């Protein structure tokens, strides 16, 4: 009644499984790379905090200057 650890389907679908694994790894690399590039393009990395879930008016120079 137990699922066998080794089954012929594992061997048969090996190529497909590795392919899917590689595609997922590639997708993660792309999202990570895009995140790095987009954040660095902000210039001042602190600006990234503007996209946080909490409003941080003090990091906007004009508004934060008087506080």
């Amino acid at each position, binding site marked *: 009644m137990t699922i*066998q650890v080794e089954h012929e389907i594992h061997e048969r679908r090996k190529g497909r499984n590795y392919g899917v694994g590689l595609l997922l790894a590639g997708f993660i690399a792309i999202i990570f790379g895009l995140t790095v590039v987009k954040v660095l393009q902000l210039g001042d990395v602190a600006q990234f905090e503007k996209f946080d879930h909490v409003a941080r008016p003090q990091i906007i120079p004009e508004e934060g200057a008087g506080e």
Partner: protein
Amino acid sequence: MSDISATDRTYEANMGDYFALLKPRVMSLVVFTGLVGLLVAPVPVHPFIGFVAILCIAVGAGASGALNMWWDADIDARMKRTAGRPIPSGRVQPGEALGIGLALSGFSVVLLALATNFLAAFLLFFTIFFYAVIYSMWLKRATPQNIVIGGAAGAFPPMIGWAVATGSVSIESILMFALIFMWTPPHFWALALFVKSDYGRAGVPMLTETHGRDVTRKHVIVYTLLLVPVAIGLGFTSIGGPVYLAVAVIMNAWFLKGAYDIWTRTDADCEADKHKVEIKVFKVSLYYLFAHFGALLIEAALRLYGIGGW
């Protein structure tokens, strides 16, 4: 349930079969023209974002190919050229192709929107929609002009590449679009004149079969004449220059001469030399597109050193 059991299908599709759904050869043309559209634009793009954008365009084009294969499986099964494709040969199930096509369409459009801008993503979405719905589902089986209007789908990539960099559509990107759009009919009909097709048996109206070969020859010369001003005109925009113009003049003269030769031939001439002229013109048409976009790339490279353009 005692064990993991697979289906009774004797053949297990591998990654290569799924990749074949994406029409890799069409993809290579899409990557090349899309890359040129991106590189000749006046706004520099970060290399990684450029890479992701081209990947999205390629995957989007591949997705539309998978949707096309899903819809056209019945036609493909009846034609010798396409009977070996993954679905008609039974290697991939139609539902799998539909799922892959829809999933990759969604991924590529959303990722392009996040990586670049909404205009580029919208153009990619429209390209997929145009190829899968307007061309495959509607025009292909309805009119012998299918290839003319359907060619628009293949013409969008440089426009998307340009939109990735600039976030806009301009005369340069419209003319790059028009160049491929006007080039597709004479290119395809030159092929249709020498390939013994079975479109008739599959129920697809092709000009050579609905209106005959003489009418097709006339269409080749007329569309080539309409193509010339587009190709030359592109040379006078901001992405053109002396190198492009020189290439365009030579290639258009060559292509026009070929189209004229086709126009003046009869079926007897074709039989006599086994379609020698048509085969040659088809090859010239491939060089034609490659040379024009290659010349645009050279102009862009020269501009980096302050010597390209006008």
